[in-house]
């Protein structure tokens, strides 16, 4: 697989973003969701956490604030409200429960970047050869035709986020998507949590990304 480093995107003169982007993390209590929330809380964002219930979200918020969050942390009792306020949406719920969430957020996710990190658990471990004609990310894009779905982080397990935060060595993460502005936005987000973004192509490359497993 040929990878195109996204570092060049950040060598150009970028528009200053003193404005804090709002990121909704749907499934902030899931392992990857909470690891992402922890990492993003150190960056200049406004996070809106959605968990199984309000109580869980509040516990997460308290924990993040206690750890010295730089980001603003909010909670929302429902995914729709969180996504309505958000500029970027991270789908951190398991693949199997995504559809239910999508129905709730569809209307308010129009025009927004939606990050797919799921790896369908129904699939057994496969070889690196792509063998299917779709992916979770592409299915998500079909269900959210007016959103800009980007695949990333699915090759990184939760523990690696923490490791990346405490070590000086930056891991890489692959990014795939159909929209250049969305790829740029997600690359910036990936950099902000200490990873090096590698844009690998359009959303169809998710078919391969979703079969990759790293321990």
């Amino acid at each position, binding site marked *: 697989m040929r990878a195109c480093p996204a570092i060049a995107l950040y060598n150009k003169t970028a*528009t*200053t*973003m*003193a*404005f804090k982007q709002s990121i909704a993390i749907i499934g902030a209590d899931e392992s990857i969701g909470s690891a992402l929330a922890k990492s993003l809380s150190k960056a200049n964002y406004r996070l809106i956490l959605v968990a199984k219930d309000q109580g869980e979200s509040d516990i997460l918020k308290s924990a993040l604030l206690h750890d010295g969050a730089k980001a603003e942390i909010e909670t929302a009792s429902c995914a729709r*409200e969180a996504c*309505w*306020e958000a*500029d970027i949406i991270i789908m951190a719920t398991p693949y199997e429960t995504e559809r239910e969430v999508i129905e709730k957020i569809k*209307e*308010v996710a*129009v*025009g*927004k970047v939606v990050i797919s990190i799921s790896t369908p658990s129904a699939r057994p471990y496969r070889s690196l050869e792509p063998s299917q004609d779709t992916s979770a990310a592409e299915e998500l894009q079909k269900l959210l035709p*007016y959103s800009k779905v980007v695949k990333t982080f699915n090759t990184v397990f939760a523990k690696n986020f923490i490791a990346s935060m405490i070590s000086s060595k930056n891991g890489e993460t692959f990014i795939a998507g159909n929209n250049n502005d969305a790829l740029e936005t997600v690359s910036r987000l990936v950099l902000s949590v200490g990873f090096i973004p590698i844009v690998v192509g359009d959303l169809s490359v998710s078919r391969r990304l979703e079969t990759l497993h790293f321990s």
Partner: protein
Amino acid sequence: MYKRLNESVREKVTLTPEDTELIHHYFIPKKLRKRQYLLNAGDVCQYIAFVEKGLLRSFSIDDKAGEHVIQFAMEGWWASDMSSFLSGDDALYNIEALEDSELLLLTKSALEELLERVPKMERYFRLLMQNNIVALQRRVTSSQSDTAEEKYVKLIDAYPDFIHRSSQHDVASYLGITPETLSRIRRQLATRK
């Protein structure tokens, strides 16, 4: 979610039900809480914003940290830093929500795609711009030649409910008078009734 937008469009152009539905997909629905900013001066303005619900103020800050309100935007109005939006230069204005607000945002590329896809919307935006130019001309003339009281009376005649939704400080700034002058005018008007 698109009630006010549909009304605003219907006032100026006639679209088919299909096109009415279609234009919705070009807008980004965005909720802002009170005191949240849509735009910071110095950033590039990415959007023109239509207010479905709520109230925004656009203001600049001078060298002495004084705030100057250029515009308010309530339901059915549009807000943006047009110069920054069109040129990509740094915005002069801050845009802040004075109430919890529901906005529909258009990026420049979405606007271009919308106009290509539904050409009748060119007329909608032309009429908006025409009205805007007229209003701005009137406002400059009022600023140059009206007394403080005349400016205030014109504002409350046009938007009687608006006064209750914004602070005296913001209204005074918009009118180009001090809060103390505004307070005196209000007392005098109340006395005359």
